[in-house]
């Protein structure tokens, strides 16, 4: 009953907007079109760090490597290329949302994204947005959200980019991109392939990394067509096909492998009529995995989830400095797999947004969201942000929000164990940032506090089976620092970037720091170019982590510094050749107990632009 009332309320609310929308005059659309317009438009109190493709090429093809070396997000990686899960601001792996062109793609089965199943070569830029974002981005945006974006412009140009890198362990990283557009249409095509024998030498007398080979291929397509000055149609499609053998600690272990096959499709219609911009999206996501628990056999366990998403986003500029918006989303999922009988679920959500700039220097935002579904009880979410420019140099920002992570298919429906009475995990969080920027220098300092309740934890139940319950409470707090500096002295160009994160994430009951959350993490990069020469240094520092929930330090993983270095020469305007040294000082390190990472290794790379 409640559900129906709520539905009517929302439909009424948005249709009244829609009727108004018809009567307005015409304006010209922006040239640069991010699919995810909300990312820029509705992040007033928060920091967004964007990695463009030239930065992405400085790291391995997989998303873990790109983010680990450039952002404050910490990764727990079971050896290079293996299972990788993030901890963003001390939160769990399912508390970071990943969005593909504005669509939430976290797994329906476990609520996470394995960051080694995303090839960065498929995207034009990747944005990292710290802090809560569930009002706009839905489940999992607690620690933050990662946005994989394809850019479609109408520049009337054609550009081909080829990046080829080959190195140690027979590792191939090939990325091809085609961007072509007219005044009315735009096409973006990206093809990325990454493969490796991954048989690096392990420290001591352990021999080589065994059964760690992997490959993946990603194809990304974007197509835009401008129907008239008010309407644009866009289509995005992605296919990812990957197989990883899971590496062994001892050669006698049973060899296993894991296959991912995901396809994502999004059709978008944007209409801009005067003060109204409406965006209608239809998406179809197909998520598949197969796990072979012994590669000698053909037996595997599997999961398949198909999601149909309809999203309607309406923004209205009431006045020059006041914008209202509403986002309606319906997600229907049909999932099945080993241990899961076929289950469907439908989630409807409505969000209302407001952005106001009463004075030139002050801006604030309000957002609310509520879901309706038969699968679980969903909390009312909110977000309140503000920013004030004290001067051109100094800005103060804040955000307070309530966010959630919904129970997954495994949580709700796992055979004899899923708990249909689960509630979503939810967080109340607050952050405050100061931005400083002058000349070529910018810096930002953020402090945050997150209280996460009703965390879902799998515990053994009376039946002897494991059962998930809403039990844990976690308090995270900490600070993030970003530094950027650029300098140009005649033909010498310098660029310096740094991040630092201090993270405390405590189990509220025991007061212990969560395992695999380092107190300290820092990254740095330095770019230098002179005439046709360019050089890049990257550094990653990860502090000591606990591996035991009682914080017994005897079993801690040591802190580590890892450095990469590369040099390149631009032979022609369209042709660049370079070499890269990774783990320059041959540091022996691991981010998961007994899962060593590679020592010093080499690659050469080639860049073609035409």
């Amino acid at each position: 009953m409640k559900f129906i009332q709520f539905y009517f309320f929302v439909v009424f609310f948005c249709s009244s907007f829609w009727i108004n929308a018809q009567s307005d005059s015409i304006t010209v659309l922006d040239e640069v079109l991010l699919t995810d317009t909300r990312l820029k438009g509705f992040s007033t109190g928060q920091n967004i760090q964007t990695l463009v493709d030239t930065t992405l090429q400085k790291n391995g093809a997989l998303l873990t490597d790109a983010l680990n070396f450039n952002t404050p997000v910490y990764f727990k990686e079971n050896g290079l290329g293996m299972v990788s899960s993030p901890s963003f601001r001390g939160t769990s792996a399912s508390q970071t949302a990943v969005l593909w062109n504005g669509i939430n793609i976290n797994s329906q089965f476990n609520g996470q994204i394995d960051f080694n199943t995303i090839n960065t070569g498929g995207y034009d830029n990747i944005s990292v947005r710290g802090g809560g974002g569930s009002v706009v981005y839905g489940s999992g945006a607690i620690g933050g959200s990662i946005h994989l974006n394809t850019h479609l412009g109408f520049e009337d140009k054609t550009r081909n980019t080829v990046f080829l890198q080959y190195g140690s362990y027979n590792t191939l990283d090939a990325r091809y991109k085609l961007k072509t557009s007219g005044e009315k249409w735009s096409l973006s095509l990206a093809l990325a392939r990454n493969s490796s024998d991954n048989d690096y030498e392990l420290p001591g007398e352990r021999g080589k990394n065994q059964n760690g080979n992997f490959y993946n291929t990603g194809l990304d397509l974007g197509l835009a067509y401008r129907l008239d000055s008010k309407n644009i149609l866009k289509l995005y499609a992605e296919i990812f096909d990957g197989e990883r053998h899971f590496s062994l600690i001892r050669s006698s272990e049973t060899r296993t492998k894991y296959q991912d096959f995901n396809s994502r499709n999004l059709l978008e219609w944007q209409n801009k009529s005067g003060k109204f911009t409406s965006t209608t999206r239809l998406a179809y996501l197909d998520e598949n995995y197969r796990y072979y628990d012994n590669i000698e056999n053909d037996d595997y366990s599997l999961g398949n989830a198909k999601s149909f998403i309809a999203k309607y986003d309406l923004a209205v500029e009431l006045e020059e400095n006041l914008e209202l918006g509403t986002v309606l989303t319906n997600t229907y999922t049909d999932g099945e797999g080993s241990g899961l009988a076929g289950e469907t679920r439908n989630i409807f959500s409505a969000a209302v947004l407001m952005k106001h700039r009463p004075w030139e220097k002050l801006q604030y935002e309000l957002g609310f969201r509520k879901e309706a579904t038969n699968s679980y009880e969903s909390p009312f979410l909110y977000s309140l942000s503000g920013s004030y420019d004290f001067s051109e140099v100094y800005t103060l920002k804040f955000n307070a929000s309530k966010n959630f992570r919904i129970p997954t298919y495994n949580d709700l429906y796992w055979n004899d164990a899923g708990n249909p009475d689960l509630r979503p995990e939810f967080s109340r969080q607050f952050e405050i940032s100061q931005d400083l920027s002058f000349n070529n220098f910018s810096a930002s300092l953020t402090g945050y506090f997150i209280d996460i309740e009703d965390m879902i934890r799998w515990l053994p139940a009376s039946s002897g089976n494991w059962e998930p319950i809403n039990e844990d409470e976690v308090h995270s707090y900490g600070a993030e620092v970003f530094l950027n500096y650029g300098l140009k002295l005649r033909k010498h160009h310098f660029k310096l970037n740094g991040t630092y994160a201090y993270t405390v994430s405590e189990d509220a009951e025991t007061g212990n720091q969560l395992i695999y959350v380092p107190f300290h993490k820092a990254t740095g990069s330095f770019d230098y170019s002179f005439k046709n020469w360019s050089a890049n240094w990257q550094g990653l520092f990860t502090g000591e982590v606990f591996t035991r929930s009682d914080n017994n330090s005897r079993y801690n993983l040591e802190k580590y510094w890892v450095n990469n270095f590369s040099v390149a020469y631009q032979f022609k305007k369209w042709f660049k050749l370079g070499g890269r040294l990774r783990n320059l000082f041959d540091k022996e390190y691991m981010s998961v107990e007994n899962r060593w990472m590679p020592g010093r290794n080499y690659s050469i790379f080639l860049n073609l632009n035409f």
Partner: protein
Amino acid sequence: MKKISRLLTFGLMGCFLFNSCSNDDDITDDNTPDPQGDYSDGVIVLNEGSFGDDNSSISYISHDYSTIEPDIFFSVNDESLGDTGQSITFDDEFAYIVMNVSNIIQIVDRYTFELVGSIESGLQSPRYAVIENGKMYVTNQNSSTDPDDDFIAIINLETLEVEKTIESTPLEYIQEEDGLIYVQNAAFGNGNEISVIDSNSDEIINTIETNEELNSFEIEDGILYALSVSSLEKIDLTSGDVIEEIEIETGDASDASNLRLEDDMIYYTVGSSVYVMNENAEEAPEEALFSYSSDSRWGAMYAFEVEDDRIFIGDAGEFSANGFVQVYNLSGELLEEFETGIGPNSVYVQD
């Protein structure tokens, strides 16, 4: 410099003192040709560690509880034991440590825990082992996705090679009695049979049926004691008849587990409670001998042993930190408690 030399002197003195003390001890006690080694007597606890992390370990506790060592395999051999230690089988000289995820059996001198060899092929998710006729019989659960592929590997202890396998599903505990190998065809609350293998022919010669959800079994004086989820059967091994069947009230919370026979008494556990009755008893006891409180519902009573007038229980907590072992006397009074490694799953008493 001064400090260092002082430390050295102190250290040297300590050595002399320590050595002379132990020499004295040796002289007074040196009448029995006892096996030599740091771990020749005391209590051995196998800690399985966390699955997939290769952090299994062995804790040692001396009989007088004065010495506790957290990871003797590592401290003796300077290498890690492996992934998910499942059980240890002893013969006169060696201890065979069955590593479930590593698919290895580590062979150590049972008194020093020095690594002398290992069996690294032919095993797939090995669980338990017994030794008879110069051969070791190991139950293997094989693939987790296929419940019907379990097998027994028969290993020649001279060559350490698997010589034969016998398919039999599902599989768990294995015991030897009078030259016959008894294998429990029941695991994780599924199964109701015990297969009997002749250790000369290495063929299954008999199958004994029990109640459903067989948990564990023991053999003594020609009688098989089979503990199922809520009953205990006594089966005459000569005639195959069920002599006695005792109902066990467990409540909804837990199953009866961990059958042990010791000094004419029958011990078993339900949840975090220990029950005891006489071998001739016709009814199960209503009252527990003792209970302990555990925060862990899955890892409670993760290890259980009765030996030398003592009862040992192990608790694994949430498997994300070290567990503990408690020692009780036969009246159920707590004597000692020790921290172990992650997931203590079995206790062995050296004598």
